[in-house]
């Protein structure tokens, strides 16, 4: 009995105060592999020689709620399999869970939770950040730090990470970065590029952030097969483009945002048109918003499905400098009213946006409160019937598609057919019951009267 208790005590002791990781790093030679067993390590770590630090059984490194936790100052460090948690909350000092200050780092398969800044790469080119889960502190957005930040770190690969409840995942002055298969939820900006060129973002899911993806002052960008869903902050763009150049936006699914894509001063030069193709813009408040001076974009083979406003020109203007078709292929518009008599898959009439209520909204945003009311439909009806009040078309698509293009990135969530069927049954049952009561009450009522 006593021996058992003694062993238990020992085991607990070991679990509570394992040998310090910092000591083992100090004692290691460059190139060594340090395996760290499970337990909670309350310490700060600086890795100043090329080592592989491998957590076995997900050891926890706890910062105790102040300062930074892990700092990597030597190149060629690998850091994997840990849980790093509980940084300070000092925004001035940018308290950070894992800070990398040297190139060729591999940060993989870590859980980073309850932190101000998650993973911060400063001058760490050619690094890999893969399969980490980064969760911010439960703070007001203005007091949060960035879940992931790159500063002058070229050719970094960011793959299959999950970032939630942070401020931004942001790239500063980092060229040639590849961002693939990540998930960003409930942050301020899902992914934010500042002065970062030749960046590729593919197969990411960016949902329920204030803004999904924002490109600023960058060029040669590819955004492909991403899902930008329900980003509904005060500006609420699925994708924002500010003075961005040479970009290709294709095969994305952009759904339920306040504004699907917001285009401001992009493309910045006339070197290459801004290309938007095979994207699906669906159920956003506004599909695509252009600032009036924007020109040089080409949109073809996109689906515009039931956005309250499909295309908006802020401050009223025309989109003459932009094209809505390439090689005689336009876009699919759910509100297209024409037909396809020659059956070539293209509408025989060009698609013009000339909805009266929409143009009223552009002029007086307060009127949005009448969205979805029958009065809105009445106004559209009047506009169709009386050409005199029909607004000037904002743009025209000369070759509208009759069928939507099949999306490559899917915005489907888990099938919930069962509950819907149950709801249907419940409603039918309630209605049926009332009906049956009425019928069976028939005989009784006849007797009473």
């Amino acid at each position, binding site marked *: 009995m006593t021996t058992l208790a003694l062993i238990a005590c020992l085991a607990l002791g070991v679990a509570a105060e394992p040998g310090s990781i910092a000591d083992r790093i100090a004692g290691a030679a460059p190139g060594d592999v340090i395996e760290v067993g499970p337990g909670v390590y309350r310490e700060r770590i600086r890795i100043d020689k090329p080592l592989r630090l491998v957590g076995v059984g997900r050891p926890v490194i706890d910062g105790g709620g102040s300062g930074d936790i892990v700092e990597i100052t030597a190149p060629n460090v690998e850091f994997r399999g840990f849980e790093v948690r509980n940084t300070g909350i000092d925004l001035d000092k940018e308290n950070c869970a894992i800070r990398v200050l040297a190139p060729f780092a591999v940060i993989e398969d870590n859980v980073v939770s309850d932190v101000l800044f998650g993973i911060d790469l400063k001058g760490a080119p050619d690094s890999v950040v893969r399969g980490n889960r980064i969760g911010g502190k439960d703070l007001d957005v203005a007091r949060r730090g960035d879940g992931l930040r790159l500063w002058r770190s070229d050719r970094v690969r960011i793959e299959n990470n999950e970032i939630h409840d942070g401020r931004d995942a942001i790239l500063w002055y980092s060229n040639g970065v590849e961002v693939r298969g990540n998930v960003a939820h409930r942050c301020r900006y899902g992914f934010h590029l500042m002065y970062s060129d030749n960046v590729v973002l593919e197969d990411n899911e960016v949902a329920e952030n204030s803004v999904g993806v924002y490109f600023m002052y960058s060029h040669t960008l590819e955004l492909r097969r991403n899902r930008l869903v*329900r980003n*509904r902050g005060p500006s609420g763009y699925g994708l924002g483009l500010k003075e961005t150049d040479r970009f290709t936006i294709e095969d994305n*699914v952009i759904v*339920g945002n306040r504004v699907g894509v917001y285009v401001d001063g992009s493309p910045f030069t006339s070197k290459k048109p801004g290309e938007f193709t095979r994207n*699906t813009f*669906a*159920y956003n408040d506004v599909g695509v918003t252009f600032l009036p001076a924007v020109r040089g974009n080409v949109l073809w083979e996109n689906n515009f*499905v*039931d956005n*309250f406003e499909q295309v908006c020109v802020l401050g009223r203007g025309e989109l003459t400098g932009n094209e809505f078709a390439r090689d005689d292929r336009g876009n699919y518009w*759910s509100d297209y009213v024409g037909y396809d008599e020659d059956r070539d898959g293209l509408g025989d009439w060009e698609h013009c946006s000339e909805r009266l209520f929409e143009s*009223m*909204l552009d002029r*007086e945003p*307060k*009127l*949005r*409160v*009448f*969205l*979805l*009311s*029958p*009065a809105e*439909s*009445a106004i559209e009806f009047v506009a169709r019937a009386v050409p005199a009040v029909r607004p000037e078309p904002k743009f025209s698509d000369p070759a509208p598609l009759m069928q*939507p*293009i*099949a*999306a490559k990135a*899917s*915005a*489907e969530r888990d*099938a*919930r*057919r069962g509950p*819907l*069927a149950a*709801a*249907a*049954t*419940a*409603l*039918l*049952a*309630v*209605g*049926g019951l*009332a*009906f049956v*009561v*009425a*019928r*069976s*009450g*028939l005989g*009784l009522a006849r*007797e*009473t*009267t």
Partner: protein
Amino acid sequence: MTAALTVTSDDRAGSRPPSALSNVVALGMRQLRDAVRSRWFALYTLAFTALGLAVSYVSAHAAGGAGVSGFGRTTAGLLNLVLLIVPLMALTAGAGSIASDRERGMLPYLLAQPIARWELLLGTYLGLALALFASVTLGLGACAAVLAAMGERTDPGSIVWLAVLSCILALGMLSVGMLVSVVTRRASVATGTAVFLWLALVFGTDLGLMAGTIAFKLRIQTLFGLCLANPLQVFKMWSLHVIDASIDVLGPAGTYALDTWGSALSWIFAGALAAWVVVPLGLATAIFARRSPV
């Protein structure tokens, strides 16, 4: 049902006068039976269901290959339909009730029974309300069934919420209809008034308010306050609020309401609609108590 049963047995025994509750239940059952057998009920239910199915089918189909069902505007489309049909249904049903009884000479006969006038009014109201509930839930239930069969991923909760709120809207509009019914002498006038009111609520007030917003540059809080005066707007905002968890889709006014009232918003909407249920019905009761039945 059991209440109704006891009513009959008590009446047969003749031991004591029936209670107010049993009176109301018996009158309600009569009204419900009449309503369910009547043409308007069948017609409205059919029209509502057919249009609802069309909306569901089209919106489930529109997203088609785009792979974005489940974020759809199906519920929003149904909401638009409810806004059009349910008030018309409830207003005309309410307006037709007492007025037609009076026109057919049924009212003096009914009031010759040992029942209070408010019992008659309440019984009629509840009977019609139940008929409307049946109509609304059958219609929306059928839509949900079609959506489920088409593999649409509409949130089931949103349809149930829509049904519940539609029933509350129906109660309010029925209440207004009853008031119309009590103050008019002829059934045709009552129905005409109901249709006029419907037009005013569905189109008139909104269009007027739109014009007012532009002409007088209404402030956002004034606009929101005025919207609260229209039961249809309240229903719409409440539905969006519970279904989408947000009315920010309604632009500045929605964002203002959300920022200012936050979680109290549901209670504001509930209070506004409850007023539309209680006030007209109370007025109707007061007027009906004084008026001659012929």
